[in-house]
């Protein structure tokens, strides 16, 4: 077990700066949202913005569209803002395709020329990706908590801790799902750029599919293919309980990706 542990420590050391910087940025973003929400709250602007939304938009989008037009709703936006989701999914893919970059640079030759079984490479990648995703979400939640503690107006309701935890866990499983997909692609690719681009394009296509399907019924029949379908923050904001089915689907996809990674990587040639 000494070898795998040393590889794990090395892998964490390699990504620590990237993850810490990204975590800090996301935490700052949470604080920034709280500042914006406080400002809107103090100027009573939430009601005004709500009144500007045309009725047909409310009809199409349902009550969820106004769910974030409140102090606590806007604070929660940090867990489903496109930029946040996009950067977290991209980071997951980057971490998951590290093994492809190690093959490309020849580093994998040095590792696997030692008595280290190939499955440890995938296990290491899963542990690093999962731990980093959790670490980032914890940093975001710390940002939210610290922002609320220091900046929230006194008379305003905070988002429930359970809601934040639900959003974070759903987002975390979405990241893990894309990690699995990217790792499976990376474990058969020779170039990280190819693996990353393929996974990224797939994510973009499936995000658009989910987006289109929300407004265009014909796309609904295939929208179940998109992992983004199983991250429903608006429903959580409107008080729905954490959809366990969605979590199971995301987790199952992640596990399927990881299992495929084990199989592909154990059979492939390690060549640059």
């Amino acid at each position, binding site marked *: 077990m*000494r*070898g795998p542990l*040393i590889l794990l420590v090395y892998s964490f050391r390699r990504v620590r700066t990237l993850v810490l910087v990204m975590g800090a940025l996301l935490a700052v973003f949470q604080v920034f949202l709280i500042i914006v929400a406080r400002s809107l709250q103090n100027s009573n602007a939430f009601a005004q913005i709500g009144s500007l939304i045309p009725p047909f938009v409310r009809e199409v989008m349902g009550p969820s569209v106004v769910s974030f037009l409140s102090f606590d709703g806007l604070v929660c936006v940090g867990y489903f803002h496109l930029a946040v989701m996009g950067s977290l999914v991209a980071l997951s893919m980057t971490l998951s395709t590290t093994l492809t970059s190690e093959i490309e640079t020849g580093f994998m*030759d040095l590792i696997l*020329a030692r*008595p280290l079984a190939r499955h440890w490479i995938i296990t290491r990648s899963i542990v690093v990706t999962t731990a980093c995703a959790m670490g980032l979400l914890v940093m975001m939640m710390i940002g939210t908590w610290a922002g609320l503690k220091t900046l929230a107006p006194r008379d305003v309701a905070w988002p429930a801790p359970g809601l934040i935890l639900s959003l974070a866990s759903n987002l975390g499983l979405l990241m893990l799902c894309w990690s699995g997909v990217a790792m499976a692609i990376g474990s058969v690719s020779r170039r990280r750029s190819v693996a990353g681009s393929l996974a990224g394009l797939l994510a973009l296509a499936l995000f658009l599919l989910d987006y289109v399907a929300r407004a265009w019924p014909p796309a609904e029949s295939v929208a179940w293919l998109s992992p983004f379908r199983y991250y429903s923050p608006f429903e959580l904001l409107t008080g729905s309980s954490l959809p366990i089915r969605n979590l199971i689907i995301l987790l199952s996809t992640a596990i399927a990706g990881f299992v495929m990674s084990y199989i592909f990587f154990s059979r492939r040639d390690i060549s640059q």
Partner: protein
Amino acid sequence: MNSNDRTEPAISARGLTKRYGKLTAVNNLHLEVKQGEILGFLGLNGAGKTTTIRLLLDLLRPTSGQAFILGHDCQADGLRARSLVGYLPGEMGIYSHLTGREVLDFLAGLNQQTVDREYQRELQDRLELPEVDLRRKLREYSTGMKRKLGLIQAFQADPPLLILDEPTEGLDPLMQDSFYDLVVGVQQRGRTIFMSSHVLSEVEHVCNRVALLRKGELVLLSSVEEIRRLAPRRVRVFFSEEVKLEQDLPPGHETVEINPHMWSLRVEGPLGPLFKRLSGFPVSDIEFEERRLEDVLIPYYREGAS
């Protein structure tokens, strides 16, 4: 099997074949490397040397055939096999943000064998890579320094088998000499060295046997001594007076340069016919150049290139 079993070959390839679609990189390779020998693995670029090495290390999976390291199947028992190997790749794919010391410690940690710090220091001394250099980031390393680091990481666990892919690439002549001394030293302690190389003089200098690959096939496997015996002699005959070559030379004799005071010849086989031919000539001196491996090997390379 016990890795100390001296009867077991250090490397055994049995019908090892690797194909990429229509391209055959290694074809039906049968090769045995005895324990305690230094085998030079030769061939032109693309001949299949590195592919063979990667098959031995289970980085590539063979299309057919098997390979064994000290009796352990490189695939089925790959972990045990690789625990007995020190490997120097052709190019060190190491991240430049690490220091040399971090690389050595990291790679030592992945080995099941413990690294003797004394021996590691001895390697550093021999290859002139002091601790102060090891504390520097790899991005500050020259090509030669990276090669030295690669050699130290391969040798540091003192494994029974060393697989070295073009080990002297990027080393200066003094370091090359240090490397030769190192290799001979580890061989004297019973270690086996399997090294690919393009440098025939180095193979001649340190190797006991030579295996030559051409287009993925083993075309020559012989001891260096045997190959030397096959090599034509270079002979220069000096005359005290002007002479003229009026008759043909005996069979197996080829002129390289002829002038009235000196003949330069390549002689295959015994020298008796030449001495017989020279009787009656005013010979002042005869010089024999040492037989060179390249005189035998270069034609093999040429056939492969054509």
